[in-house]
């Protein structure tokens, strides 16, 4: 069981590393929002699954389930609100500069 817990923690840390590097390196707010939304949800839920596996059925795991449900509801809403604000404020999406091939 401890190997499963360690595996889920390592998975969460890997997702967090990739998401934070994306937020740091991507060129405009929309792509950064993409990296942030996916990777924050997967990081937090991987850590919560590791906690549930570690704890079994107790007071702690019930509260962890409540927090996971709340986070699962509010993460996409926050991403949508930020993206809508950027779009209404007129942030221009990034395009590849002319003459540069991918």
């Amino acid at each position, binding site marked *: 069981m401890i190997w499963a*817990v360690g595996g889920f923690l390592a998975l969460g*840390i890997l997702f967090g590393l990739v998401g934070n590097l994306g*937020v*740091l390196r991507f060129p405009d*707010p929309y792509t*950064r929002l993409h990296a942030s939304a996916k990777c*924050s949800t997967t990081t937090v839920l991987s850590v919560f699954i590791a906690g549930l596996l570690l704890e079994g059925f107790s007071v702690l795991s019930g509260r962890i389930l409540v927090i996971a449900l709340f986070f699962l509801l509010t993460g996409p809403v*926050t991403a949508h*609100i*930020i993206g809508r604000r950027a779009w209404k404020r007129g942030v221009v999406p990034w395009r590849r500069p002319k003459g540069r091939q991918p």
Partner: protein
Amino acid sequence: MDVRLLLDLAVYALAAITVLSAVRVVIGPTPEDRLIGLNLVASQVLAILVLLALRQKQAVYLDVALVYAILGYIGILAIARHVDKGEQG
């Protein structure tokens, strides 16, 4: 392997990762970039709080984590809708 050592390592790794998005909060050119960084920092601090609760076996940390999640959501919503609003938001 000890469970507490594993949780300690996970807390340290998450805290080290969070620095990267805190850098985005500081240098972000637009306000939306700062909001994205704040959202990511809040979610990783939530994960760190849950890991600390599991390490100390205390349910009080989980209450703190739930209130932190709710306040982070409402705070980011309020900043996104009412601070520095050019148009109708």
